[in-house]
C-alpha cells in the first residue's frame, strides 16, 4: 500500500492511542491536524480530551508532557518546528533527560517529542534548521530521525513504547513522499541502522532527507564503476555503530552526510566513533557533507545552494577514491 511519510506518522500515533489509553497528543493546533497534517483525524477519532490543542507556550507544553509522563501517562508532544525546541530546552534537557538518573531511578519519563526540521521551503533561518546534534549531546535523551515512511511508522511505535524521553525528528521535505508500506508496518527498534543499498567501494552514512540524496549519488557513482553502500542510522542515540563499522571494514572509506551544518554536526560524532573503532580499516580520511557555517538563507537560489545533496555526496565519495 502506498502511503506518505506524514500519513505513516499519523497512523502510528492513532494505533498507539487505540492500543493504550494512556497515550495522548498535545501541541499547537494538533486537534486541527497541524500545518502538515501530522495529527490529522486524531481529534475526530479520540476526542479533544486526548488530542489537546495548546497555546503557543513551548516550555509549558513540554513541561506538561514531562509531568504527565512521570505520573504514568505516555504523552506525544508536538513541537511544530525544531527551531522552537529552543523555547522548551529547560524541560527537555534539565528536566526530562535527567529525572530518571537524578531520582536514583524512581522517576521515568516515557514521552515522545515529535518535531520536524530541514530547509527547502523558503521559510528562512528560523523555520529551516537541523538542530538534532544539540539533543544528541544530552545523556538521557534518545534521538530518532527516520528517512522513510515505513521507518517513521515503525520507529514511532517503538518511541512511544520506550520508557525514556525520545526526540523524534521528522523532515518537512519528506512528508509528502509516497512509499510502499505494509498495512500494519513492522515495529522498528530504536537503535538499529538499516543498510539501504549494499556496496563494496565506499560507505555513505546519511541522515534523514539525505538518505534519498545518497541513493541518487550512489546510482551516479555506479555509472562510474563505484559501488557505494548507503546506511541510514535511523537512530542517532543510541547509535548502531556496529553496522557502520562492519561496512567500513569492507569498503575502507566513509562519507557522512547530513543536512545540518557540518561544524559540530552529528557527523563529527560518527567520524570520531568510527576512527576509534576502525582506524586500521580506513584507507582515507573520513569525509563529511553538510551545510556551510551560515544561517539558512531565504532567497531560493541561495537556499538551494546551501542545502547539501547528491552532487556533494558523490563528489566526496570520489575524493576518497581518487
Amino acid at each position, binding site marked *: 500500500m502506498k502511503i506518505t511519510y506524514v500519513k505513516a506518522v499519523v497512523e502510528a500515533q492513532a494505533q498507539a492511542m487505540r492500543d493504550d489509553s494512556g497515550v495522548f497528543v498535545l501541541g499547537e493546533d494538533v486537534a486541527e491536524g497541524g500545518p502538515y497534517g501530522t495529527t490529522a483525524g486524531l481529534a475526530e477519532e479520540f476526542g479533544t480530551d486526548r488530542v489537546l490543542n495548546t497555546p503557543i507556550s513551548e516550555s509549558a507544553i513540554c513541561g506538561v508532557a514531562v*509531568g*504527565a509522563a512521570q505520573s504514568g501517562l505516555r504523552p506525544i508532544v508536538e513541537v511544530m518546528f525544531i527551531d522552537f525546541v529552543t523555547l522548551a530546552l529547560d524541560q527537555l534537557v534539565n528536566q526530562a533527560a535527567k529525572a530518571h538518573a537524578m531520582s536514583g531511578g*524512581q522517576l521515568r519519563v516515557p514521552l515522545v517529542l515529535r518535531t520536524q526540521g530541514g530547509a527547502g521551503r523558503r521559510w528562512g533561518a528560523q523555520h529551516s534548521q537541523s538542530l538534532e546534534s544539540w539533543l544528541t549531546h544530552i545523556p538521557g535523551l534518545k534521538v530518532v530521525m527516520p528517512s522513510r515512511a515505513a521507518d517513521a511508522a515503525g520507529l514511532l511505535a517503538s518511541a512511544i513504547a520506550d520508557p525514556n524521553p525520545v526526540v523524534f525528528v521528522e523532515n518537512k521535505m519528506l512528508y509528502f513522499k509516497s512509499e510502499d508500506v505494509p498495512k500494519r508496518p513492522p515495529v522498528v527498534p530504536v537503535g538499529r541502522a538499516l543498510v539501504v543499498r549494499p556496496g563494496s567501494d565506499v560507505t555513505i552514512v546519511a541522515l534523514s532527507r539525505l538518505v534519498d540524496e545518497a541513493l541518487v549519488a550512489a546510482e551516479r557513482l555506479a555509472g562510474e564503476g563505484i559501488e557505494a553502500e548507503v546506511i541510514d542510522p535511523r537512530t542517532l542515540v543510541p547509535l548502531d555503530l556496529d553496522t557502520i563499522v562492519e561496512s567500513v571494514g569492507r569498503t575502507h572509506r566513509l562519507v557522512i552526510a547530513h543536512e545540518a551544518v557540518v561544524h559540530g554536526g552529528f557527523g563529527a560524532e560518527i567520524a570520531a566513533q568510527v576512527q576509534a573503532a576502525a582506524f586500521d580499516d580506513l584507507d582515507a580520511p573520513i569525509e563529511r557533507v553538510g551545510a556551510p557555517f551560515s544561517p539558512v538563507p531565504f532567497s531560493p537560489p541561495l537556499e538551494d545552494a546551501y542545502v547539501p545533496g547528491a552532487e556533494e555526496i558523490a563528489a566526496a565519495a570520489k575524493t576518497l577514491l581518487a
Partner: protein
Amino acid sequence: MPSLDSEAALGLLRTMWRIRHFEERVGQLKRADEVHGLIHLSVGQEAVAAGVCSQLQGDDAIYSGHRAHGHAIAAGAPIERAMAELMGRVDGLCKGLGGSMHLVDTEHGLMGATGVVGGNIPMALGSALAARMGDGKQVAVVFFGDGAVQAGHFNESINLATLWELPVIFVCENNGFAEFTPRSAHTRVERVTDVVAPYGLTRETIDGNDAVAVWETFARFLASARAGRGPLLLECLTHRLRGHYEGDPAHYRKALEAKDWQAKDPILRLQRHGVEEGWFVEDDVKALELEEQKAVEAAVEFARASPFPPADLIGDLTYA
C-alpha cells in the same frame, strides 16, 4: 470551614521542629564539609511546608524547587534518607545522584525538585492532567519562590492551568528576595496574587509564618481543587532567616533583630497560639521538640554510616 485542632496542631509542630532541626544541622554539616553542594535552607519558612504537605495524600503530586528540604520532610520523606542524600550517600533518597536541589521521594508523592527556578511549575500541570485523565481526585501542588514569578514558564503555566481548569495548587513562598535581590528591584507588582489576577483563578495572600492560616486556607483550597473547581494560587508571605544559600554573606539585607524574629518565628507563634487555645501545654511541646532533635541526630549517624555510591552507578541510570 475546616479548622485546626489540637491533634493537627501538634502534628504541624512536630513537622516544623523536624524541619528546623534538620536544616540547622545541615547548615553546620555544610560548614564542616560533610554535606555537599549548593545548600538552600528553609529556616523560617517551615509553616508553609508543614501546613500544605500535612494535608496531602501519597498519590497527590508535589513539586518543589531548589529550597526543597522542608517540603520533602513535610511530605513524609524519611529524614535519614534525606540526610544521606545531602551527604551524597548510596542510601540517600536518590542514591546520592540527586543532591539537595533534586530531592525526589515518589512513595510520598514528591515527584521532583529542580534547581532551575520555575522549571517545576509546568511539570505540576502534567501531573494534574494525569490525575484528571485518570478520573482521580488527586491534585498537584507546586512550591516556588517569588523569584519564579518573573520567569516565562510561570506565566505560561498559569495561563494553561486556568484554560484547562487543572487540579493544581500553586504555592508561592514569597520571602521578598529573589536570590539576592529584593522583589521591588525585579517587578512593579508587589503581590503575586495581583500578577495572576487577570486569569481569574482563586487566589489569596496570607501570612505564611502563621501556621494556622496556612493550614486553614490550604484546607479550603485543597477541597476546591479536589472538587474539580480548577487551579488556585496561595501566596505565603514569609521570611527566609538565612542567606540564599549556605555561605551567602547576605550583605544585601539587614539581619532581623532577635526580638522581631521571636515575634515572627512560625514555630514559636504556633506554640504560643496552641497554649492560649488550650491545645497543649509547654511541656508537651518541649518533649516533642527534643524527640525531633534526637531523630535528626540519628539521621546524621545513619547518613554517616552509609557508603558513597559505587562508581559503576555512573551512567547506570541514564536510561530507564
